[in-house]
């Protein structure tokens, strides 16, 4: 069998400058979204296991809603739906960051909860028995250990969220996929361009994996 289609390396490389214009958006949405998502995750994860009972149910509702609905639906809701409620348009970039933050935040809440709960009860007892207050015990004894255990799961979530940003091409954010679609509309080089886009995602996610494994190894002692 003979292929009548050749992979055109020339075309692939030529598309790169145009595709790279989307990279800052992909990175911005990913990192801003994940940073905010991490904060949300810490807050809701701790609300869920904290001493204040009435704070638990909002945390449960939040996690179930944003974990149980697709990111695509979330961003469409924010971008097309919310303006009706707010009475003004929402910037596509903002909508993308918000969707990643809220979605990742729900998963990270569970990661935080699991990480903190995985620390043996004796650690808390030892901290308290030394006269540390409950918040001090959390800050100096529980949290550093929990955070270290959370790193692999946080890395997973980071990678998932980075890939999720590709969905935001539908609301017109000029990220990698959107740039590719625009480029292909003029050149009809879908094979080469999507291949290059895949490589670019891989470059981002592999860098993250590498960074996290270094972080994990560095903190391995103890």
């Amino acid at each position, binding site marked *: 069998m003979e292929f009548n289609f050749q992979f055109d390396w020339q075309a692939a490389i030529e598309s790169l400058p145009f595709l790279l214009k989307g990279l800052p958006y992909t990175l911005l949405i990913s990192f801003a979204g994940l940073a905010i998502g991490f904060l949300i995750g810490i807050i809701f994860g701790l609300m869920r296991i904290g001493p204040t009972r009435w704070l638990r149910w909002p945390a449960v509702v939040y996690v179930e809603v944003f974990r149980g609905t697709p990111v695509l639906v979330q961003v469409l809701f924010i971008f097309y739906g919310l303006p009706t409620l707010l009475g003004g348009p929402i910037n596509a970039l903002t909508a993308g960051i918000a969707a990643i933050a809220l979605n990742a935040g729900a998963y990270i809440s569970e990661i935080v909860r699991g990480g903190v709960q995985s620390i043996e009860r004796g650690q808390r*007892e030892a901290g308290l028995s030394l006269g540390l207050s409950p918040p001090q015990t959390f800050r100096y004894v529980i949290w550093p250990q929990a955070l270290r255990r959370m790193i692999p799961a946080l890395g997973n979530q980071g990678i998932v969220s980075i890939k999720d940003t590709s969905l935001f091409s539908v609301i017109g954010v000029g990220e990698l996929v959107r740039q590719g679609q625009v480029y292909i509309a003029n050149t009809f080089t879908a094979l080469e361009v999507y291949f290059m886009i895949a490589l670019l995602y891989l470059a981002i996610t592999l860098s993250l994996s590498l960074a996290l494994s270094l972080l994990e190894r560095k903190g391995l002692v103890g």
Partner: protein
Amino acid sequence: MNDSVTSQDTDRTADASPIVRLDKVDKHFGNLHVMQEIDLSVAHGEVVVIIGASGSGKSTLIRCVNGLEPFQSGRIEVDGKTLMPNGASGKSLQAVRTEVGMVFQQFNLFPHLSIRDNVTLAPRKVRGVTRDQANAIADKLLERVGIADQADKYPTQLSGGQQQRVALARALAMEPRLMLFDEPTSALDPEMIGEVLDAMRELANDGMTMMIVTHEMGFAREVADRVVFVHGGQIVEQGPPEQLFDHPRHERTQAFLSRVLKH
């Protein structure tokens, strides 16, 4: 009866006022009545060893003394501060914990901190001691328990016996007025029990007030001023070690001792 321990400046020299006083302390775990109106006083400088079968409530008893276990009724006075039932102790809870050190069966060292930082954490964060001062205190204490050369290592790099001695140093760094030991040698390999008991013996000789839950009857006989036998959430019998070990009066004590001493 001494029932008015109100301030810090209680008489340290004499046994005029107890440092610990449990007054009708009662605790349930669901249907299980783990502490039945327990009364117990410990004098300054006294070493009290609590013995009993597993599930008798002996660990629960000493865990109540620093508020790690809530109780349902009665009260506990520790060094002039009062612990109330159902977690209603307020500020005095942390105040008690600051003055009372504890050594756990599973050591519970902080695995993310170096040995030195394990010892300095509480003095720095609770007492506001500077890092340099705290390090000096830590090095002195680690030398006292014989692990000065391991200060920069991490807990998992040490043997069980060494870890437990670090745990002792960590508790002593807060200069406690009372030390609690919850089966401090039960998780240790047999060859490491001696080194931990030695460190505790030294502490007792220095005059520390101690409440010890242990299965080491030889150690109890040698170090204790008083031995308390607990069964079914009640103090069945107590007295000087010679009396309790050699002439137990209660049949439950006799049954327990015949089981633990004959092997």
